[in-house]
C-alpha cells in the first residue's frame, strides 16, 4: 500500500528551524516503520538522519514519536498506524532532549541521569558459595525491572519532565528500583517486599 511518511526535519547546526517533509512510498502492511525510513535514506533522500540497530525491539536505538505516541520504529508495523491507501504517518523526534538532527536527539542527559542512580550491584554480603542463592520467587520480584532497554521513550512521554526538567525520569527510577528490590529479596523483609511490589505495579 502507498503511505505518506511525514518526517520532522531539522539541522540545528545550520540554524534551520524544524519542518515536516513528506515522502510517499509503497510499503507492505506488515513492514516496519523502520523499513520505510531505511528505504527513504538509501534510495530517496540520503540526508535523513535517525538511529537504528537491531531492528527488532531489543537494542533501543530507534525510539521516536509516531503519530504522537512514543514507539520503537522497528516494533511498529505500517498496519499499526495506517489503515488506508495514502494514509499519512507523522514521525517526530523524542521530547525533553535536544534535537541533534532530524529524528536524532541528544540522549546524553538521559544516560547521565541513568548513571547518577548508581545502577549496579553494590554487594551487601560476601558470596558464600560459587553463586548467590536466590529463589525463583525472589528472582521474579525484580524481573520487570530487568526488561528496560533504555530507549528513552518513557523520558519523552513523561509529563513530569514538562514542568521539571531536573526530574531523573522513569528509566533511571526503574534502574534504581531493580537493585532496591534485589536487596530486599536477599533480606527477605516481607513488609518491604510487598510494599515494593505494590510500588512496582504502579510504576508500570
Amino acid at each position, binding site marked *: 500500500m502507498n503511505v505518506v511518511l511525514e518526517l520532522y526535519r531539522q*539541522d540545528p*547546526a*545550520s540554524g534551520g528551524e524544524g519542518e515536516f517533509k513528506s515522502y510517499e512510498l509503497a510499503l507492505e502492511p*506488515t513492514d516496519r516503520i523502520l523499513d520505510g525510513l*531505511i*528505504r527513504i*535514506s*538509501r*534510495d530517496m*533522500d*540520503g*540526508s*535523513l*538522519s*535517525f*538511529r*537504528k*540497530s*537491531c*531492528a*527488532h*525491539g*531489543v*537494542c*533501543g*536505538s530507534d525510539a521516536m514519536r509516531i503519530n504522537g505516541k512514543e514507539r520503537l520504529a522497528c*516494533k511498529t*508495523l505500517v498496519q499499526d498506524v495506517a489503515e488506508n491507501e495514502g494514509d499519512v504517518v507523522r514521525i517526530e523526534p523524542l521530547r525533553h532532549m535536544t534535537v*541533534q*538532527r532530524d529524528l*536524532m536527539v541528544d*540522549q546524553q542527559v538521559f*544516560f547521565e541521569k541513568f*548513571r547518577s542512580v*548508581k*545502577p*549496579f*550491584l553494590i*554487594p551487601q554480603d560476601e*558470596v558464600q558459595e*560459587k*553463586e*548467590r*542463592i*536466590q*529463589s*525463583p520467587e*525472589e*528472582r521474579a520480584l*525484580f*524481573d520487570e525491572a*530487568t*526488561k528496560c*532497554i*533504555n530507549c528513552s521513550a518513557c523520558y519523552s512521554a513523561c509529563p513530569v519532565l514538562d514542568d521539571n526538567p531536573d526530574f531523573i525520569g522513569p528509566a533511571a527510577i526503574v534502574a534504581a528500583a531493580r*537493585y532496591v528490590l*534485589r536487596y530486599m529479596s536477599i533480606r527477605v523483609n516481607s513488609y518491604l517486599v510487598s510494599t515494593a511490589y505494590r510500588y512496582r505495579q504502579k510504576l508500570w
Partner: protein
Amino acid sequence: MIYEFDAVIVGAGGAGLYAALEAGRTAKTAVISKLYPMRSHTGAAQGGIGAALGNVEEDKPEWHAFDTVKGGDYLVDQEAARILAEEAVQTVYDLENRGLPFSRTPEGRIAQRRFGGHTRNFGEGPVHRSCYAADRTGNMILQTLYQQCIKNDVHFFDEFQVVELLLDGTRCTGVVVFELKTGEVHIFKAKAVLFATGGFGRMFRITSNALANTGDGPAVLARAGIPLEDMEFFQFHPTGIKGMGILITEGVRGEGGILLNSKGERFMERYAPTMLDLAPRDMVSRAIMTEISEGRGVRGDREIDDWVMLDASHLGRDVVESKIPDIADFCKTYLALDPADEPMPVQPTAHYAMGGIPTDIHGRVDTGGTVYEGLYAAGECACVSVHGANRLGTNSLVDLVVFGRRAGKHIAEYVQNVTHGAVDEGAAQAYAARVAKLKTEKGKHPGPIYREMQSIMTAKVGVYRNESNMLEAVAAIRELREQFKDVRVQDTADNFNTEVLAILELENLLDLSLITAASAENRQESRGAHSRPDYPDRDDEVWLKHTLARLDGNTISIDYKSVDVSIWEPKPRVY
C-alpha cells in the same frame, strides 16, 4: 584531534566491555563504539551461555570442550576449546557475582537448559549446560558489564567509527576514527588496540544480525593487509522468522519445541536420530533446506525462501511465558500469532561468522607466522578458533566473556612495558579528504548495491553452495565493488552525517563479502557450515587446515594455517 591512551577498545559489546574492565585495571583505557551505550548486538543473544556448572545434572568442562570440537567439525583449535570450556565456569560465576540476574533452579542456583550439540559423556544425549536469564541472556550480560563499566569509570567515546588501522611494520600504534557528531577525523594513539566489533551478517538478505553488524573491524584489518581466517564458515541459524530473519532462539527447542514439515512430520528423526531437534545448527539448517528442496516446505514450491514450522504449543502457556517471553512477543508483533497456541513459520537465517581476525589464545592477532604486537581481537570478529566450521549455540557468549577477559588481562600486562609507537599524523587528514570527496561530486545512491550484494550472498553463498554459484558470486561482488566507487552522498553536512557512515559500512560489507565468497569457492570439501553438493564429504587429508585469505585490490590470495588437534583425533560426525 589526537588522543592518546594506553589501550583503545573498539566496540562496546560483551567482549569489548569485559576487556575494558580488565585492561582498565592498569591501563588508561578508552572504549570507542559506533553506537550509544547498551545498543550493541550482544544484547540480542537470547538462549544462554554454556558452562559446565552441573546445577541440574552432572557435567564436566571436558565434555563441553569435546562437544565444541565435534560441533566445529574438528576445525577447532583444541587447546583453545579446552580453555573456553574450563574458564566458562568461573566467568559465569563472576558475572553472577556482579549482579547478572540469571534465572534460577528451585534450589536457588543458576538455571540451566539443554541446547543444540551440548551432550553428556561425549555424545550420549543432551545435557543441561546453557545458563540463562529467560530468553534475554545477552541483554543481561551487556547490561551487567556496562553497569560495571559505570562503576569503574570507563572512558567511552560514543558514536565514533574506526576507519583505519595505524601500523608501524607489524606493530599497532593506533587507529583513525570518524566522529559522527562533528564529522571530524581523529587519531587515537595507543600502545594496544583491541577490535571487538562483532559480526557481519548484514552481507546477507535474511539475517538475525543488527543493521550495525557490518564487520568494521575485520574489514579495516583486511584493508591494512592482514589476512582473515576461515571466512567461508558462516552459520545459518535454523530458526529465523520467515522473511525477516529475526532470531527464534534454539532455547525453544531446548525447552522441547519441535520442527515440522508440511506433512506434520518431525523430520529431524531422519537426520539426527539421537539429538533430534537439538542437533548442531549446521545440520538442522541443512535438514530444513533439504525438506524444502524436496517439496515438503510449507509452500511446497522448493524455492529457497520456503519455510517449515517450529511448534512450541504443546509446552503450555506457562513455559512459553516464563521461559521464552521475548519470542512470544516477537511472534505477536511481527506474525500476529501466539506460540502458545500455534506453530511459528521459520527458515534459516544468517547468524554468526565463525571466521574473522586470526588470534592466539591471548587475543593477539596472529597469522600463523606473524604476531602483530599491540593488536588484539576478541568476540565474533575474531577467530581463535574455538568454533571451527560450526559454532555451538551458547558458545558465542562464552567466547565473548572468556576471550574478551583474557585479551583485557594480556593488554593490562603488555602496556606496562612498552612506549607509544610512531604514528603518521597525516592519516587523519588523508581520510578526511576521502570523506570530503564523497560529498563534492554527484553519484549514485547506495541502496541498489546494498540489496544486490545481499541477494547474491543469500542465493549463492548460503546453506548449500556449489562451484558455479560461488564463482558467479565472486564475479558479481567484484563488479559491485567497482560500482561502489561511484557512490556519493547527498548529505553534505558535517554534523551527524549518517549517510557517510552508511557508505563506509557498505564498503566494509563488500570487502568481507568478496573474502567470504572467494574463501568458500576455494575450499573443496564439505565441513560444518560449509556444505557443497559438488564436494559432499569432509576431506581431512587435504582440508584439515584453516584458510587465511588476504585482500589485495579486487583479488584474494589464499594461504593456510594448521589446526591444533592435540587432544581428540578427528572422527566422523554423527548425532
